[in-house]
């Protein structure tokens, strides 16, 4: 798999650790023992964040209890976007460095990211009806997130659409990289255009427009959602590697 047989020729600085991580056997050696810990910590953080947010944190002065949807909606939205960014990065690794593990990761990130995007869309829609007065409006924020959902679904379909897997990986990587322009559009949509969706509450540079006892459960739940995403992707990638190993072992037996 490593085309770089001549030492030092065309090696970027990142090549070393990229090659280290890209080895499927090494990935399994790191991932298999880490997986139960990842799963346990992410479950714990999700439960703590959501129970705190739904039962202990104060209700919003204006929206009342409806504001509690944010402990699910906001983390799901952040993870959906971060997941697509990860998809774009592994697609770049796949298309430029042809790492076999990057292809597997791209194949496995898609359905998980689509799931988080669906949670974001459905929870937002359920909040929108009582608060805005409409389940759905075609403003720039909502439309760009819907496009993100379709990009995920398109990627899931395209990467599995070819008999020759390598063709599917190449085509899907191009789709994922092209779709990455949607990410800044989602982030800045509430600033560039008038939208019905509210502006940013959390900001890293300035003060966040949220009371501190509502911010803590939101951050815990966000961390939980991120770790849950990582857990699901790592588990799926490990399963895919074992699947391939089994298939090639069976093929070797059949050819004997």
């Amino acid at each position, binding site marked *: 798999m490593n*085309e*770089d047989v001549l030492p030092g*020729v*065309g090696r*970027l600085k990142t090549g070393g650790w990229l090659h280290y991580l890209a080895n499927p056997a090494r990935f399994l050696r790191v991932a298999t023992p880490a997986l139960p810990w990842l799963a346990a910590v992410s479950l714990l953080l999700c439960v703590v964040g959501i129970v705190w947010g739904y039962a202990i944190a*104060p*209700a*919003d*002065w*204006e*929206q009342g209890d409806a*504001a509690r949807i*944010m402990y699910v909606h906001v983390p799901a939205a952040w993870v959906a976007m971060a997941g697509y960014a990860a998809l774009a990065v592994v697609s*770049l690794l796949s*298309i*430029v*460095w042809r790492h076999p593990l990057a292809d597997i990761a791209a194949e496995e990130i898609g359905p998980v990211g689509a799931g988080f995007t669906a949670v974001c869309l459905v929870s937002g829609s359920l909040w929108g009806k*009582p*608060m*805005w*007065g*409409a389940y759905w*409006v*075609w*403003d*720039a924020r909502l439309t760009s997130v819907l496009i993100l959902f379709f990009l995920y679904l398109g990627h899931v379909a395209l990467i599995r659409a070819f008999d020759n897997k390598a063709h599917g990986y190449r085509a899907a990587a191009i789709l994922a*990289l*092209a779709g*990455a*322009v949607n990410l800044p*559009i989602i982030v800045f949509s509430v600033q*560039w*255009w*008038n*939208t*019905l969706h*509210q*502006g*940013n*509450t959390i900001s890293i540079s*300035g*003060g*966040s*427009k*949220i*009371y*501190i*006892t*509502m*911010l803590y459960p939101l951050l815990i739940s966000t961390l939980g959602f991120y770790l849950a995403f990582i857990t699901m992707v790592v588990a799926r990638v490990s399963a895919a590697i074992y699947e391939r190993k089994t298939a090639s072992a069976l093929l070797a037996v059949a050819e004997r």
Partner: protein
Amino acid sequence: MRTPKKRRLYLVLACGLCFSAAVGLSLAAFSTSLTYFLSPRQVVAKAPAVGQSFRLGGVVEAGSVLTTLAGETPTTHFAVTDGRAAVNVTYTGVLPDLFREGQGVVAIGSMGPGGSFVADEVLAKHGAAYMPKDVEQSLKQAGKWDPKFGPPPDASSWNTMTVKAGS
């Protein structure tokens, strides 16, 4: 030194640059139609023709709301402002729960013959600030913020503020 990897990397970067530029330019060109609503200032400067449907967005002007009941259905008159201009709106029907003076709203409808906007639907736009009721109350009592007159003050002045129990 041109290895296949480097060539592919430059190719991806060049394609990405061109594609982003194309998307950026088309978004800039379509920016007016991507805007979900027109502000009162835009409507006053160049009002759409009577009967032509559009969305009007802004803040409900303090002291402008007047509701009359005709049988079971309420008709509400209010003004939507962006601080510089205001447009009078008439809406018949039940308003969303978040509707109040000082709230951001988006009204869907068209200009009526009398120069006021006739809304078929009114959506409430929620602000980005989240705080418990007692924090809002104590900001109000301290005279730092009245929700009727726009968004809350700078977040650092209240997002860690301690509130006396029972206040």
